C-alpha cells in the first residue's frame, strides 16, 4: 500500500512541477496586454515570423491551431465549445458556413488594405461583395511530375495522359473525393460540379481503368515523396506543387487543357469569436503588401494580393503554371456547394473507386 501512495504522490508532484514549468514558458513567450487571438488555419500555411511580427505590432498574443480538412474545421466550429477568432476555409466551405449562419460580417472600413487585393478575387459567387470572407491564397489542381522519369510524349496537356500504360504503378492521387472524381469528370469533358448521375457513373468507370497505374491515394505526405524522387506523377494542388518544385528542381507542373478546379482559401471570422476587433486587425495585417509577399515566399501558394505582386520576383509572378493569366482561367471551375446528399454520392463513388484498386 505504501508504494502505491508513494507512486501517486510522485506522479502528482511531477505534474505540479511540469505545470509550473509550462506556465513559466507560456508567460515568457507571450507579449501580454491586448488579449489573445485564436487563429485556426491549415498546417504550414503561414510564415511563423509573421505571427511574431503581428504580436509585436499589436500586443495581441496569437494562439495558432491547425486543421487538415475543411470538414474537420467545420465540425469543430459547428459544435461550438471553441472560440476561434479567425479561420481559413475554402470557398465551398465558406458557402456552407454562410448558409448555416456561422460567420460574422466583416467590417470593410476596418480593412483598408482590402484595396491591395486584385479585383478578380473579390465579389465571387460563393460570397457576393465579400461580406463574410477576405481572400488569403488561391490556386488550381493539376499534375506535378518528374519529366526525367517518364516518356517524353507525356506532357499532361490532357488528363488522359494519366491512363498511359507507361505510367504503370507511378501515379499518386490526392485523398479527396471532389478532386479525383472531378478529374474523372474533367477528362470526359464534363463539369466537375456535375449533378448528373450518368456522368458521375461514367467518370467512375473511367477512373477504374487507372487501376494498374495508381500507386497510392494519399494526402500531404506526397510532398516529401515527390521531393525525394520516390514518386513520379501526382495529382496535387498548385501551391503544394510550387512547394515541391522549390525543393526539387527536376519537377514540373501542368494543368491539363480540358479544365480543372480553381480554388480560394479566404479568411473568415466565426460567430464564436471572442476578439472580433483583433480578428479585423489580423486580416488587415495579412493583406499588407510586404506581409503578403513574405507569406507567399514562405508558404509557396499563389497570393491574390496585387500590391504584393510588385514586391515578388518577376519569375514567380509571371509563371503561368501558378499565376495563370485571366484568359487561361476560362476553363477552370470553382467548386460549387453540392449539398450533403450529392457530396455523399461523390464519396460513395470515390470509395467504390478506391476499392477497385486492390
Amino acid at each position: 500500500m505504501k508504494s502505491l501512495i508513494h507512486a501517486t504522490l510522485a506522479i502528482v508532484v511531477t505534474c505540479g512541477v511540469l505545470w509550473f514549468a509550462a506556465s513559466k514558458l507560456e508567460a515568457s513567450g507571450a507579449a501580454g496586454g491586448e488579449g489573445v487571438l485564436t487563429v485556426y488555419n491549415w498546417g504550414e500555411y503561414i510564415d511563423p515570423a509573421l505571427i511574431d511580427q503581428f504580436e509585436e505590432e499589436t500586443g495581441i498574443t496569437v494562439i495558432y491551431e491547425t486543421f487538415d480538412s475543411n470538414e474537420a474545421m467545420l465540425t469543430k466550429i459547428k459544435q461550438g465549445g471553441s472560440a476561434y477568432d479567425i479561420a481559413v476555409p475554402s470557398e465551398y466551405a465558406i458557402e456552407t458556413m454562410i448558409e448555416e449562419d456561422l460567420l460574422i460580417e466583416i467590417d470593410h472600413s476596418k480593412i483598408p488594405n482590402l484595396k491591395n487585393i486584385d479585383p478578380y478575387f473579390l465579389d465571387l459567387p460563393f460570397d457576393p461583395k465579400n461580406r463574410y470572407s477576405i481572400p488569403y491564397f488561391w490556386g488550381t489542381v493539376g499534375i506535378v511530375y518528374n519529366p526525367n522519369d517518364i516518356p517524353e510524349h507525356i506532357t499532361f496537356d490532357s488528363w488522359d495522359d494519366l491512363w498511359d500504360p507507361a505510367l504503370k504503378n507511378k501515379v499518386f492521387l490526392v485523398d479527396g473525393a471532389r478532386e479525383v472524381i472531378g478529374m474523372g469528370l474533367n477528362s470526359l469533358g464534363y463539369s466537375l460540379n456535375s449533378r448528373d448521375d450518368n456522368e458521375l457513373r461514367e467518370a467512375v468507370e473511367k477512373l477504374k481503368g487507372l487501376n494498374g497505374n495508381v500507386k497510392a491515394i494519399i494526402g500531404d505526405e506526397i510532398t516529401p515523396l515527390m521531393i525525394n524522387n520516390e514518386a513520379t506523377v501526382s495529382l496535387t494542388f498548385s501551391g503544394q506543387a510550387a512547394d515541391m518544385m522549390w525543393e526539387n528542381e527536376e519537377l514540373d507542373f501542368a494543368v491539363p487543357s480540358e479544365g480543372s478546379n480553381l480554388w480560394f482559401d479566404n479568411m473568415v471570422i466565426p460567430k464564436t469569436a471572442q476578439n472580433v476587433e483583433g480578428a479585423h486587425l489580423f486580416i488587415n495585417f495579412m493583406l499588407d503588401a510586404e506581409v503578403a509577399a513574405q507569406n507567399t515566399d514562405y508558404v509557396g501558394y499563389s497570393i491574390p494580393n496585387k500590391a504584393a505582386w510588385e514586391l515578388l520576383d518577376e519569375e514567380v509572378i509571371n509563371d503561368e503554371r501558378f499565376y495563370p493569366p485571366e484568359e487561361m482561367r476560362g476553363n477552370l471551375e470553382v467548386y460549387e456547394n453540392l449539398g450533403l446528399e450529392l457530396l455523399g454520392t461523390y464519396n460513395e463513388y470515390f470509395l467504390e473507386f478506391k476499392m477497385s484498386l486492390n
Partner: protein
Amino acid sequence: MRSNLTTTAKVYLAIVFVILYAPIFYLIFYSFNSGGTMSSFESFTLEHYKAVFNDNRLLVILINTTIVALLSALIATMIGTLGAIGIVSMSNKKMRRTLLSLNNILIVSPDVVIGASFLILFTMVGIQLGFTSVLISHIAFSIPIVVLMVLPKLFEMNTNLIDAALDLGANRRDVLTRVILPYIKPGIFAGFFMALTYSLDDFAVTFFVTGNGFSTLSVEIYSMARAGISLTVNAISGLVFVVTVGIVVMYYLITKRTRKSGEV
C-alpha cells in the same frame, strides 16, 4: 530463474527486438542529421536538439502531453482498480458479465467513433474544448484497459483471505487497503503503464476533442506532416525515448532492491 535459452531462441528474440526498435532508432539517427530531412544523412549536428529547447511552444506541448498522460493514467488507474474490485465482488453473474462487456466496448471501438461521440457529449454538456476535455477523454478510454489488467489478479486471489480478514474483525476499508490492494499491486502497475501507453499513443480522439489552442504531441505532429516532418520532432522522440528508458530501468532497479530487502 536461470536463463536457459537456446541460441535459436536468443536469435529470435534479438530479431524481434531489432524490429521493435528499428523505427525508433531510425528517428533518433536522423535527429542528428544536418541535412534537414529523413532521407539522406549529411553530417552530425545537435542543432535539432537545440531547436527543441529554444521552441517554447513545442516544449509546452511536450509538457502538456506528459501531464495529460500521467494524470489521466493515474485517475484512470484509481477508478479502474476500484471498478474491477466492484465487478469481482458482484454477486449477480449476469450483471457482472454485462458490465464486463460494456467495459470492453471502448477498448475495441474505433478511435474515430470514440472521438466523435465524445465531441457530441462534451458539447451537449457544455464543456469547453481544451485541456479538460482532452484529460476527461483520456481518462475515459484508459479505464477499461486498467480494469482488464487488474481483473486477472483479482480472480487469482484467494477469497478466504478476505473472509478471514473480515472474520477477524477488519472493516471494509482495512480489507481494501491491507489485503486486496497489496495483493493486486502488480496488476495495478500494469494497468497504469498500459493507460500511459494508450494516452501517449492517442491521436484520433484528441484530434476530435481538443480546441482553443491546446495541443498534444500527436496532434502537432500530424499538422506538421504537411511540409514533411521537421527533424525537431525526431529530436523530441530521441529525448522522450532516453528519458522513458531511464525511468523504466530506474524503476526496475528500485523495485528489485525493495523486493530483496523484504518489504512489500
